[in-house]
């Protein structure tokens, strides 16, 4: 099994640097001791792991790829992706909390925010003192994100937002939200702008919480804006830049979700390897049967291929290369692999795999969302083909 992959840069050195190896050790220890013991309960009771998030903050998981002067850890995107991977191996809910916070809220403030916005919002986000979320999707604007109905009107020194968002990760628990809203409908996608909205802003409330198939500990809710007053200085980027900011943000977010999918797949394999060595049928461990061996071989091969794609995308972003297509490929392949691998993991567990006594059924339910959120697999194909055919 390939564990140490891709140093990146100019060479094709497929080993992790010593620093990344030690980070991986830290992530694994933390995930194994602090996250794994709660994973079943977080799922079963749809419990947002508040205490875990505090611990994640203490050890620096909430701001890995941001510079120290902005409260971050001074790490890179590879280090960040590896953290999401290790957390998701044992609990996909915890993985997506970190991913949405880092990639969808802190990252756009880091990339597009003014110095004042970074001081005010990025520092507490990167330190993990505040939690972040991102609102683009609306009831009628899913894959067609340009069909935004939430409106923002400038009135004196503030914007007034009206409308709603759905399926927002970390909603309710997040303190800071990046919200897309239409500032000039006549300009289409160029009429969309991005705003930094605080949970306590007047006219902003969190609506219905979704009951979901997987990642059940992650809070997924509706956001409602009723004459929500947002100070003018909370416009992120320029007026009309919102759609571009959203698309660039999602490019980065896909690395996080791809890493989550990768973690889910590897976690399911790790569980399955343990199980097939113990489970006996026809007088011997089922690991002795060639069907088990060949299935596991396929599972690990695809998962390693996912890992290479995910780490390549992270490395490309670190090196300031164009990575949009790489991130789309990583997410497309890793999420489909996660679905396939977890389904096979349940199959190898047989009847027990279908029960909640073993974690693989949870992993299978968790895997499905990775093919859907932050751009469905079909959207990823549009991005990849778009790069090919332009």
């Amino acid at each position, binding site marked *: 099994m390939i564990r140490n992959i891709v140093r990146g840069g100019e060479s094709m050195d497929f080993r992790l640097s010593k620093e990344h190896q*030690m980070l991986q050790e*830290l992530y694994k220890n933390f995930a194994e001791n602090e996250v794994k013991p709660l994973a079943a309960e977080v799922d079963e009771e749809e419990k947002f792991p508040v205490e875990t998030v505090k611990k994640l903050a203490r050890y*620096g998981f909430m701001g890995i790829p941001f510079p120290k002067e902005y409260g971050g850890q001074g790490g890179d995107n590879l280090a960040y992706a590896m953290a999401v991977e290790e957390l998701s191996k044992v609990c996909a809910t915890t993985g997506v909390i970190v991913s949405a916070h880092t990639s969808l809220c802190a990252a756009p403030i880091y990339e597009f925010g003014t110095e004042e916005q970074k001081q005010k919002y990025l520092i507490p986000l990167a330190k993990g003192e505040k939690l972040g979320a991102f609102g683009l999707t609306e009831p009628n604007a899913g894959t067609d994100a340009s069909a935004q109905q939430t409106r923002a009107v400038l009135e004196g020194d503030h914007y007034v937002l009206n409308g709603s968002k759905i399926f927002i990760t970390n909603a309710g628990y997040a303190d800071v939200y990046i919200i897309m809203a239409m500032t000039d409908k006549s300009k289409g996608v160029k009429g969309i702008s991005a705003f930094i909205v605080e949970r306590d802003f007047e006219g902003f409330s969190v609506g219905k919480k979704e009951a979901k198939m997987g990642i059940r500990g992650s809070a997924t809710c509706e956001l409602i804006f009723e004459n929500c007053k947002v100070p003018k200085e909370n416009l992120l980027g320029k007026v009309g830049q919102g759609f571009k900011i959203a698309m660039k943000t999602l490019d980065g977010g896909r690395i996080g979700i791809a890493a989550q999918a990768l973690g889910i797949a590897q976690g399911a394999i790790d569980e399955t390897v343990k199980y097939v060595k113990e489970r006996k049928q026809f007088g011997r461990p089922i690991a002795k049967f060639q069907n088990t061996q060949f299935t596991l071989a396929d599972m690990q091969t695809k998962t390693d291929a996912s890992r290479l794609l995910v780490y390549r995308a992270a490395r490309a972003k670190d090196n300031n290369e164009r990575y949009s297509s790489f991130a789309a490929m990583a997410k497309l392949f890793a999420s489909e692999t996660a679905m396939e691998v977890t389904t096979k993991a349940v199959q190898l567990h047989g009847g027990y795999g279908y029960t909640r006594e073993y974690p693989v059924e949870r992993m299978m339910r968790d895997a499905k969302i990775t093919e859907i959120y932050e751009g469905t697999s079909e959207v990823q194909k549009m991005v990849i083909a778009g790069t090919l055919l332009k």
Partner: protein
Amino acid sequence: MKIVVCIKQVPDTTEVRLDPKTGTLIREGVPSIINPDDKSGLEAALRLKDEIGAKVTVITMGPPQAEKALKEALAMGADEAILLSDRAFAGADTWATSSTLAAAIRKLDYDLIIAGRQAIDGDTAQVGPQIAEHLNLPQVSYVEDLERDGDSLILKRVFEDGYHKVKVKMPCLITTLSEMNKPRYMSVSGVLDAYREKEVIKWTLDDIEVNKEHIGLKGSPTKVKKSFTKGAKAAGKKFEVTPQEGAKIIVEKLKEKYII
């Protein structure tokens, strides 16, 4: 306050296999960790640093790869790390190890020296106390709790059936138990700093003043005659009986052996 913490890199298992021919540990394929008692000692030092401010120096004697254990200590929050590595130090028993470590510590400024009680691969519990003897320092072993009281420490020294509360004036040496705390994880920035900003200081024989008769294999009075893995016990006897009958059999057997 200046604290020196002695750590050892050990194989991550209590069931180390021995090479029957050489009597030495088979380290291949076994991941290395910081010895648990030492790690708790480091945690105790880092807590003092958090509470009252301290400079924490970790030191180890070992092969070049022991640098990783020191990097981990730096990533947990230690300020400085020293690796004592030289072919001349190899093969040392506890006497030679403590002679070498004491010589290195003499070069440092310290108020407190912390060593773990014992290493999981050697289990001697001798190196810490020997360092104190070499340095002519008061020592308190088996410490499970500590608090600072001016220029002294108030320590809980644990025995099987009780504990002593001991006040000791610094400078002194203590040995710590892994039960005393739950060591922190490394932090992300700690790891990054350990590799990007902090260097492990490397000392060889030339860097310390030590009697060459007291180091390495030659300076080790302990001679290992034979090491062996205890063989498995003979298979037990199996009774397929009801719980009531089972209880009777157990009582009989215990009486037979004069246990009850």
